[in-house]
């Protein structure tokens, strides 16, 4: 338990300069929970913990998989980095829609169940959505 807290605090400290303390704690908790989920799959007697499974290799494959996802996503974020929202953009956005419209849009999504990004892509011309 003490080690868990120490690990989470270490992640927290790494993130803190960019995210701010309370939010970095939240993200550190999320990362720790994901690690626990992976550990659970690796250790479960019916899965990674099954006799004969090479756990060292399994962990290596997981690490490689994470690195692959990371590289892909970093490339995507480099191409389209999010940018800070300046006051002019905030002002523009506030003028676009009233609070009533925002609340109505939430209610609409709740009532209809909402749609996914796949639905959004499906509404576009196919040549634009091919990878």
């Amino acid at each position, binding site marked *: 338990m003490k080690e868990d807290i120490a690990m989470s605090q270490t992640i927290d400290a790494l993130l803190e300069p960019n*995210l*701010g303390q*309370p*939010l970095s*704690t*939240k*993200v550190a*908790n*999320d*990362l*720790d*929970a*994901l690690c626990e*989920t992976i550990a659970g799959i690796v250790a479960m007697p019916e899965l990674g913990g099954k006799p004969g499974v090479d756990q060292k290799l399994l962990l290596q494959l997981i690490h490689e998989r994470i690195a692959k996802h990371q590289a892909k*996503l970093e490339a*995507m*974020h480099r*191409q*389209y*980095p*999010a*940018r*800070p*929202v300046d006051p*002019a*953009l*905030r002002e*523009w*956005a*506030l003028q*676009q*829609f009233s*609070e009533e*419209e*925002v*609340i*109505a*849009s*939430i209610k*609409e*999504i709740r009532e*209809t*169940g*909402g*749609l*996914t*990004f796949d*639905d*959004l*892509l499906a*509404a*576009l*011309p196919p040549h*634009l*959505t091919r990878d």
Partner: protein
Amino acid sequence: MTCLRRSRRILPVIEPAVPYHLSYSPRVIQAFATLVTGITDPNLQKQVVVAAKDMDYRLRTYPQFGEPLRDLSLEGLCQWIGAVPPLVVQYVIDEVRRQVFVGLPISLMPRLAEPD
């Protein structure tokens, strides 16, 4: 404390490490299709689609990448704004249910939306 005042200062809570459930309204889907098909520059069209993919990923994984825009009088929810050029998205985060709503049309950054 309002969500604008607490901004990024969200109280630490242990919660399941699952992505946010992200939902779009039918109006958003329709408006985005109209936006994309109305762009005459094929390069900008492609940029918009790729930026939308990035935006979707960010909203599901870490919607706090944007900035709080205003408090709503509904369940203490807060409206946010995020810019992934050339797109701007306004959305609402429900931290309790770990949901993100995109109910308002996604736009081009204002400068890009202006006519030449």
